[in-house]
């Protein structure tokens, strides 16, 4: 029996992952070009950043009940999803155009000022794309695990970590043609951010458990010893954060690559868990019992008299 999703499902979580990683990659590309110089990242990484955002957008479209009418999401300027859709579109465009500056076949590849402008635009739009899922979730008043600005910081941080890791992996596969000095430091940046991420997650869970409302405390219990706890503690904290932190500090490129791959898996898992953690509303007394009795999918009795 197939399960019907009455709330956001795994595709949105994967969208958050790809869009966040792509946004983080654009932030890194933009910052390096503006303040260090061109050619510090792999051309493959420069291309993959906007491509990842595109993959995220595609999954968002597939999640819709009417995917062929997806263009309607651009309509309401007051909605944060609309802002996100516009910024993702801009980020994909600016990112792909910026990546063309790495190819000599394009006559504009030597236009330094245009490249700098695009780098700035990549930084701005990438930063918004990396941050907006956290803002989107943090504004949900009725979802106790998400509500508040903390989730925004966690998403931005994870986007940057996965961005560094993805650039590192792209550099292993397709090294920059000129300079590799900065790219070689990416595993160290990743390790620093992972340590910060570990600290922030402990703080977030602790504050939600002890310092928030009763409904926040109940929602957080799932992460401590509930159905999400194993995936969170072993999957995300141990194998998605702590293990890659150690591997990133090693001097072996292959171990660093394994660490970067684990960072990506951890980032995807974290978003899956956060989206699932938002299934919990602030329930009214008796509501969960009532809703637990409702059909979850295509139960036979729903179609019994159509035969």
């Amino acid at each position, binding site marked *: 029996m197939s399960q*019907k*999703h*009455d*709330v*956001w499902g795994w595709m949105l979580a994967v969208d958050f992952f790809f869009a966040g990683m792509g946004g983080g990659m654009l932030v890194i590309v933009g910052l390096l070009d503006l303040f260090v110089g061109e050619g510090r990242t792999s051309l493959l990484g420069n291309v993959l950043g906007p491509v990842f955002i595109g993959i995220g957008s595609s999954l968002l479209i597939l*999640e*819709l*009940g*009417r*995917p062929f*009418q*997806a263009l*309607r*999401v*651009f*309509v*309401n300027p*007051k*909605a*944060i*999803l*609309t802002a996100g*859709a516009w910024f993702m579109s801009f980020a994909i465009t600016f990112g792909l155009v910026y990546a063309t500056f790495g190819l000599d076949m394009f006559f504009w590849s030597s236009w330094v000022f245009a490249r700098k402008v695009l780098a700035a635009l990549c930084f701005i739009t990438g930063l918004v794309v990396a941050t907006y899922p956290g803002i989107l979730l943090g*504004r*949900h*008043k*009725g*979802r106790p695990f998400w509500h508040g600005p903390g989730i925004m910081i966690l998403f931005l941080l994870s986007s940057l970590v996965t961005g560094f890791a993805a650039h590192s992996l792209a550099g292993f596969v397709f090294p920059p043609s000129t300079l590799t000095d900065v790219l070689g430091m990416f595993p160290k940046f990743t390790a620093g951010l992972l340590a910060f991420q570990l600290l922030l997650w402990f703080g977030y869970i602790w504050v939600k458990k002890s310092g928030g409302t009763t409904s926040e405390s109940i929602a957080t219990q799932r992460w401590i010893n509930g159905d999400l706890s194993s995936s969170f503690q072993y999957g995300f904290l141990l194998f998605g954060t702590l293990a890659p932190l150690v591997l990133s500090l090693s001097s072996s490129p292959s171990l660093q690559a394994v660490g970067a791959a684990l960072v990506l898996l951890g980032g995807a898992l974290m978003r899956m868990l956060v989206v699932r953690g*938002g299934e919990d*509303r*602030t329930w*009214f*007394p*008796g*509501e969960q*019992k*009532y*809703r637990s009795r*409702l*059909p979850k999918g295509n139960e036979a*009795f*729903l179609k019994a008299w159509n035969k």
Partner: protein
Amino acid sequence: MARYAMVMDTRRCVGCHSCTVACRVHNELPLDMIYNPVVTVGPTGVFPNVRMTNLPLICMHCDNSPCVDACPTGASQQRPDGIVFVEEKKCISCKACVMACPYGARVPNHEKGTIQKCNFCMDRVDEGKLPHCVKTCHQKARIFGDMDDPTSEVYKLVNNGYPVRLLGELNTEPYVFYIVDSEVKL
């Protein structure tokens, strides 16, 4: 201009679910969709002082409605009289409103690919009739009317100080009010 509101007198509700059925029939909802569940709180207490309360849930038609703000297509709208509704042809079922609503009042229709919700039976209200759930309630536990009319029953009930708003701390300013016994914790 009218501002429609509903008062739920939980002291009168016996949990017969007539309102739920009437709503589903009138709105021709699939079996797995419910706009107005009636949940049961309790029983609580120790015999012989045992208490059970039925809590009818519904769209709160909030003045500060997070679902309308969250909708990227403009399908979720609010009329000047306060009724929040979904213009189905614009809805793409992104579920942003489902997630934004703190009351769980929005339901995906998987067959149509849209989100649907209670609209206070606005077609009937526009004709001067009562919503089906109110008309059906034989205990008169649901009272519907215009909050801008000082002679209306809802105005009087709300302004006598008894009714409470669910999740009032979220500042959504719901326009469905509840009369509950003081012993019941919501």
